[in-house]
């Protein structure tokens, strides 16, 4: 596979390490009243879609960026690649606005 790195351009998948579902970015609040349940779901419950999937890849043999890759698990078509840090920042901002 080839991953189109947002900073470095197309790179072979062999340079990356796969982690899994990008929902790992959405770490629950440790002080929430139901933190135990939320962390349990965060740690153990994953969707396993046959189709579009957002997942985390780490460019270990490259610039050490964590990426959020949107990939079709059936065809391996990659439709979007973002810096995970940008995605995570977007989420904190969105949460900030929500408050």
């Amino acid at each position, binding site marked *: 596979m080839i991953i189109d790195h947002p900073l470095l351009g197309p790179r072979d998948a062999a340079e990356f*390490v796969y982690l899994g579902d990008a929902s790992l970015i959405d770490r629950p609040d*440790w002080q929430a009243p139901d933190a*135990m349940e939320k962390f349990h779901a965060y*740690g153990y419950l994953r969707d396993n879609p046959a189709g579009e999937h957002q997942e985390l890849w780490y460019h270990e043999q490259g610039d050490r960026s*964590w990426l959020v890759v949107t990939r079709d698990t059936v*065809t391996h078509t990659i439709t979007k690649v973002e*810096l995970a840090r940008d995605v995570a920042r977007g989420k904190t901002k969105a949460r900030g606005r929500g408050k």
Partner: protein
Amino acid sequence: MTQVNRLPGGLVDRSEEVKFQFNDKWMRGYPGDTLASALMANGQLLVGRSFKYHRPRGVFTAGSEEPNALVQLRRRAEQEPNTRATMIELFEGLYATSQNHRGSLEFDLLAINDFFAPFLSAGFYYKTFMWPKAFWEKLYEPIIRSAAGLGRLSMKEDPDSYDKGFLHCDLLVIGAGPAGLAAALTAGRSGARVILADEDFRPGGRLNAETLELGGMAGHAWAEEAVKELAEMDNVRLMSRTTVYGAYDHGIYGVLERCTDHLRDSNGKPRQILWRIYSKRAVLAAGATERPIAFGNNDRPGILLAGAMRAYANRYAVAPGKQIAVFTNNDDGWRTAADLYAKGVEITTVVDSRDKPALLNIPGARHFGGQAVMDTVGRAGMKSIQLTNGQVIPCDGLAVSGGWNPNVHLTCHQRGRPEWREDLCAFVPGSDLPPGMVVAGAANGAMTLAAALSEGAVKASAQLEDLGIKPKGGEMPQAEDEPRDCAAFWHVKQSKNRAWVDLQNDVTVKDVKLANTEGFRSVELLKRYTTMGMATDQGKTSNIAGLAILAEEAGKTIPEVGTTIFRPPYTPVPLGALAGRARGKDFRPYRLTPSHKWTEENGASFVTVGNWLRAEWYTQPGEKGWRDSVDREVLQTRKSVGICDVTTLGKIDIQGKDAGAFLDMVYANTFSTLKVGRVRYGLMLREDGICYDDGTTARMGEDHYVMTTTTANAVLVFRRMEFVRQCLCPDMDVHLISTTDGWAQFAVAGPKSRDLLRKVIDRDHDISNDAFPFMACGHVTVCGGTPARLFRISFSGELAFEIAVPARYGNSMMAVLNEAGKEFDAVPYGTEALGVMRIEKGHCTGNELNGQTTAHNIGLGKMVSQKKACIGNVLSQRPEMIREDAVRLVGFRPVDRSRKLIAGSHFITKGDTASMANDQGWMTSVAYSPNLGYSIGLGFLKEGQNRMGEIVRAVSPIHNTEMEVEVVSPHFIDPEGERLRG
């Protein structure tokens, strides 16, 4: 032997002769021959024995689809089994032997299997060797193993080297037949970066095997011109002897180039190269493969596919006999008759399953329309054929054509499904091709020369336009649309004798019918039950006939039955090529510590830790075994001072205003409160609350921390910290860099360690206990100004320091420390002594932090802060993980002090039976303590903290031993920690 079957003409070079050996008989051929054509020229039609029945077999095809002519190539360590004689280029001194027979090829003792054929039907093994169960391992399997299989491995190390490489192109053209050449010419002339790959050593594909003309030239001559033109283009890479074996994601193709297989010696060059080609677009022009018709005894040497027999006559100038019969269900088979006749071979008969007039006039040949070949007579060769009308016709060769199958394999590698085309009686590529791929020529069902040429050019042009390259020069010369009519005809129903569908796996029509009768009606089940389509040829010639017969039996159409899924590789890829240079010592990269040279010169034995080679122990003269060395190193360190290279521990440099807050998130305990110039032990958890890694982290400055990790987890911890930084704490001002390789670090441990270091560290640095107490850290200089970092930390439990210098000074530093230590009788020590001392002190390593244990288990439950966000603290508080009666880390010593503890033993309370139900925990680490004079251990015991002094049983069913052990504190040495604070 002389070349009795050689014909005039052909594309072989008659100016010189090549001598070669087959089964130790010397024979002659010409450059341009394959081993198959040279054997045929020498009248050697029998080349091997079949897999199951050990039937005599000969060459059946002229390409990589060959099911029969598998031979062992070369000798000794170079020996390579199961090579296809049809793909081996002849070279001077070539040595090949036939395989799969006991005794000689001519008198194979296992040919007796053929007489037992009625008992050896599909599923024979499954049905026969079921019981008694005990017989399987001792009797059945050894017999079957020795009888089965094809070639034999030399069991010696392969002396050749194999490489891997990467290539990039705009357009990859797969196959250099007419369609492929047309595509490559068009793309090359348009300026695109082109790779043209072809498995043959002579590009041209069927143009080399046919007598067809292009623009008034012989086909092979036009191909030669085209190749010459392509070779002169800088933007084109021509790769012959190169098979594109797999179509992978995003335009990546797996490719095997056979660089020196055609030479007698590799001469130090790589034998093969496994390429990974990154293409923007691809044209698949893989051509088509002819298929046989099944009839009685259709497997004799001398029976060839019609197209193959034509290739042997036209390209290699050989024929398998003097009197040839042709059996066809299509127009193409007639060309074999015509071409062989033109070469002066007598054509006795053309049998056409279609009841229509003769397509061509072949003088001397009788034509039988609407008839079929029912049976053949002969043993190691052909004598005659019998037709369905009862007529017997003498002949010594038979050409069979059942039509042509487009080579759709690569179109299916991403689960594309081929589609049935009734007019061709064949599957053609479906619409769901791998992205970026188009198919041209016979592979796409464009079966005539004119169609192949134009499709190659047109498809390539479309691909170029897609890439924004203006196509030019796509005009191809005039060629004919030769007649290609074909009528489905799979097997001869009137045949009474066994009719082979799959020659390589000895699968007959009867076997396919039996599979259907017994309920194995899915094509995938048929394959697994009968083995049809397995092994080296993957059923290239047999699959379609097999599923046509299955369809007929099941009363379905062929498209309803469907095909099995084609997967890479298209043809076999040697394991040597897949391994490349990654074998033996180079299987994985290995890393050397900065002091490796000094360590090696001073008698160290090495052990692999992670990827590192670390000193295990240093052998002194007179020491008889490793224990002598390790005991000495431990005793001398505790008595005076020892030195150990600890560079391999991971080092991570953490800087930024939020460095402290970041570490609070990563570690279970708190680091933001650590004072500058101090070090703290840190424990990391996984998000599920299990222990992950531990180490020490030093605060070198207000915004600067230096972390150490365990050797094994250095990469993983760094990866996870980047995850936390980028994904969980994206707004923190913190940066990380791995400095594991940047600093050489040495532990200097023992009561004399300070005295030793005072000789090395420049005088203006005060390292007295007051100025530099336990858990202090700071910048110093050594040897007159060399920058260094000093940490007062101890893994051994002694007064100890770790000193780090830039890695390039590492080897000198090791020498300097040992030289300075001479007056104290300092010893260098290895990982074994390190391990003994940490067990004596009760420190955890990977044996204890094994991915199953919690902070609570190792007695550090209170370290897990509940006052801050950190990885793992929430789930670490799950009730099951903080049970009072959970296992706890404690120490053990044998009641009988002379006994040796065994790691992995399980603890059983005295009086209980040794069963899983009564399991009380397990021993994680053991060592002989030279300080105590007996074996000691660490382990996890249920409620261990409350059981000090209790005697339990340590049981090891694996070693079949058990012994009584006493539960003690895990701190065997200096439990109050006075030494390390001294």
